[in-house]
């Protein structure tokens, strides 16, 4: 405690990550012997245990403010001391509940989804490991430990994306995810280092959050801007923002529950969590905040437009995730951290629900993911249809659903808060329309219209078993009602603001603006969302071609541009990957063996050649030797004539 961190000690805190870790180890070592059911059972039970503990912790937090458990000294280099210290405050308690709660549902769902897979033990081991790292991430009491969780979830993401490793695409996607994330982490790490030495320069050699928070004001603004920019670089990687969002769509190669858990509900929000956790740094770095807001807005817009033209059921959702994360960063950028977390919370429900529903469809269609081969599935999927619809409505911001509350809160903050601007709002607003459009395009393409599935498959399409649909229902319910926690004041207000107030401080109320203005904006948003739904209906139910327009040429080009994701992957390939590869193969094939090793070998060869050449001096003729003797004598005697 010498670092001055505060919090009520709670020994049991360590169990929250420990239980899933233990379960993961059990599955790693004995999973195959235990059999499928046991493997799944252990995993689910572990997460359930964590959830219960988290709930307990949340209750305790409500009284105590913050809980803390220092396990042991991890690193102590003399200047820096890092403890393995867990802490739970209201923010992390919330995150824990999301992670373990939604995590539990997804675990349960996975039991059904992965029922026929060979690697089920491995799957659950990874999944539990993920829960471990994710809980560690949110419970970490210092930046370094947070980084452990941060990288750990990256590892699990890598493992799970490439879960079906025998397909090269999957493995490649896993690599891409990890490496792109590492690019962000590079910045993050530098940010941590810079932060530490700056603090150290102020006599506060610590990376504990509570210590940092108390002393953040000591940092020079310029340095602070640099630090936050570097940290945000990490967030762009983890939370898939421009320019590092490219890995997330590819990450859909993993099993669908994984996409739901890691690539929608939890891991990708780690960046948002991190900025929220370090809100005291970010909020005093105006430049960074502005940048974050605009990057978020731009990401939201770009991803939404791309989502319009995707035909893979999961990719649409992936881009949707990117887009929604953009929203969260808009909120962060305008300093509305609690709004960001609120959207994170609601998003976890509806996006998990969407993914799992999509998974249910895919499961029922034996792995088919192309929406152009679906259509008219409503009758095959009675439960999934409704859960999907609920979540789609939520994400589109249908009034009184979860998404409605959180999105409107963000848009309002973007418009009205001190850092907000009309431009930000406008982008967000347009994106809201696009969101409804692509969501309902997907909805209609999948569940309505004519059935496009191959005839031989049709007989086998079936709704998923209860073990899968039950979590769906829970999540769908969440998608609809979870928003009330943060209901706006004109609807009576929720507990959200007050719950998080100890963490972020009382939000500088944007409520100077008249209520009417806020309502107007809500109305505008709802209107554009409705427009989006309508357009989707026109485009997909009527024409069934899913916007794949052929006329006129300009539109077709636009469509192709979107379908090809603005050629960003290709551009990265040409601008970064290829030059690097070419440079590196030049180094490996020419420079290293040719010049560097060549120089070494040339020296050796030179001596050999000299030896061979100079051997001829030794001609074998004795009189040559004598002559040389004489010359040598002359050299010796030259001392005499010269000296």
């Amino acid at each position: 405690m010498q670092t001055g961190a505060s919090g009520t000690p709670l020994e049991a805190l360590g169990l929250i990550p420990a239980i899933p870790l233990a379960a993961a180890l059990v599955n790693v070592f004995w999973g195959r012997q235990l059999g499928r059911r046991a493997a799944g059972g252990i995993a689910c039970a572990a997460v359930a245990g964590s959830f219960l503990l988290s709930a307990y912790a949340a209750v305790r937090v409500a009284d105590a403010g913050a809980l803390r458990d220092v396990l042991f000294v991890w690193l102590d280099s003399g200047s820096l001391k890092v403890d393995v210290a867990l802490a739970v405050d209201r923010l992390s308690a919330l995150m824990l509940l999301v992670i373990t709660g939604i995590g539990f549902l997804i675990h349960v769902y996975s039991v059904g989804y992965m029922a026929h897979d060979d690697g089920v033990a491995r799957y659950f081991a990874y999944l539990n490991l993920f829960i471990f790292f994710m809980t560690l991430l949110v419970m970490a009491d210092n930046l370094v430990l947070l980084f452990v969780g941060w990288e750990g979830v990256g590892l699990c993401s890598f493992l799970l994306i490439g879960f079906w490793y025998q397909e090269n695409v999957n493995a490649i996607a896993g690599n891409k995810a990890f490496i792109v994330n590492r690019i962000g982490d590079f910045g993050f790490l530098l940010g941590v280092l810079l932060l530490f030495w700056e603090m150290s320069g102020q006599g506060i050699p610590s990376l504990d959050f509570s210590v940092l928070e108390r002393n953040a004001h000591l940092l020079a603004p310029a340095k602070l801007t640099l630090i936050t920019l570097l940290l945000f670089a990490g967030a762009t990687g983890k939370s898939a923002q421009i320019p590092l969002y490219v890995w997330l769509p590819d990450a859909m190669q993993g099993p669908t529950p994984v996409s739901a858990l890691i690539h929608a509900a939890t891991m990708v929000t780690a960046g948002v969590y991190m900025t929220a956790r370090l809100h005291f740094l970010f909020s005093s770095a105006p430049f960074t905040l502005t940048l974050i807001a605009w990057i978020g807005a731009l990401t939201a817009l770009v991803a939404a437009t791309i989502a319009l033209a995707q035909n893979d059921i999961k990719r649409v959702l992936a881009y949707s995730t990117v887009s929604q994360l953009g929203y969260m960063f808009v909120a962060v950028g305008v300093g509305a951290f609690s709004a960001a977390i609120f959207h994170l919370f609601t998003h976890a429900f509806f996006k998990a629900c969407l993914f799992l529903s999509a998974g249910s469809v895919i499961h029922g269609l034996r792995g088919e993911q192309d929406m152009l081969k679906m259509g008219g599935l409503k009758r095959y999927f009675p439960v999934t249809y409704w859960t999907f619809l609920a979540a789609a409505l939520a994400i589109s911001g249908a009034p009184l659903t979860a998404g409605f509350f959180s999105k409107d809160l963000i848009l309002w903050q973007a418009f009205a808060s001190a850092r907000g601007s009309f431009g930000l709002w406008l982008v967000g607003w347009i994106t809201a329309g696009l969101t409804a459009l692509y969501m309902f395009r997907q909805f209609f393409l999948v569940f309505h219209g004519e059935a496009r599935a191959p005839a031989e498959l049709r007989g086998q399409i079936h709704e998923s078993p209860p073990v899968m649909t039950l979590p769906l229902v829970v999540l769908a319910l969440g998608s609809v009602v979870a928003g009330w926690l943060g209901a706006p004041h004109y609807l009576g207000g929720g507990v959200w603001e007050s719950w998080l107030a100890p963490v972020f401080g009382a939000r500088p109320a944007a409520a100077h603006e008249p209520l009417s203005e806020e309502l107007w904006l809500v109305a505008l948003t709802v209107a554009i969302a409705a427009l989006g739904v309508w357009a989707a209906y026109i485009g997909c139910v009527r024409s069934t071609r899913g916007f794949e327009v052929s006329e006129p040429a300009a539109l077709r080009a636009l469509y192709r541009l979107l379908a090809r994701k603005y050629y960003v992957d290709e551009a990265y390939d040409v601008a970064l990957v290829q030059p690097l590869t070419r440079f590196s193969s030049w180094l490996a094939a020419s420079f290293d063996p040719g010049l560097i090793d060549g120089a070494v070998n040339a020296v050796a060869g030179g001596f050999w050649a000299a030896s061979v050449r100079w051997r001829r001096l030794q001609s074998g003729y004795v009189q040559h030797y004598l002559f040389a003797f004489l010359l040598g004598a002359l050299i010796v005697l030259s001392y005499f004539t010269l000296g």
Partner: protein
Amino acid sequence: MMIPVHYYLVLAAVIFAIGVAGVILRRNLIVVLMSIELMLNAVNLTFVAFARAHGQMEGQVIVFFVMTVAAAEAVVGLAIVIALSRHRRTLDPEQMHLLRG
């Protein structure tokens, strides 16, 4: 008047040089041996001249030893030449370069 001692020295040096040249240039081993004798004789001359200059007998005694050694060397040298000639009917040292490099 006496001849200055360095006259003898110069003479000896010249003879020595001639001997050296003979050793290096002649392509008959026996003549080479003779040239070596010339070199040794030049040394002897030097010794004797110095003995005279110093007025010491030592120099002359040394000449005696040098002669002994020269004789011994001549004997061994000739023996080697004979041994060599059993392998090769030639006295030309340039024909003998089995060993080189």
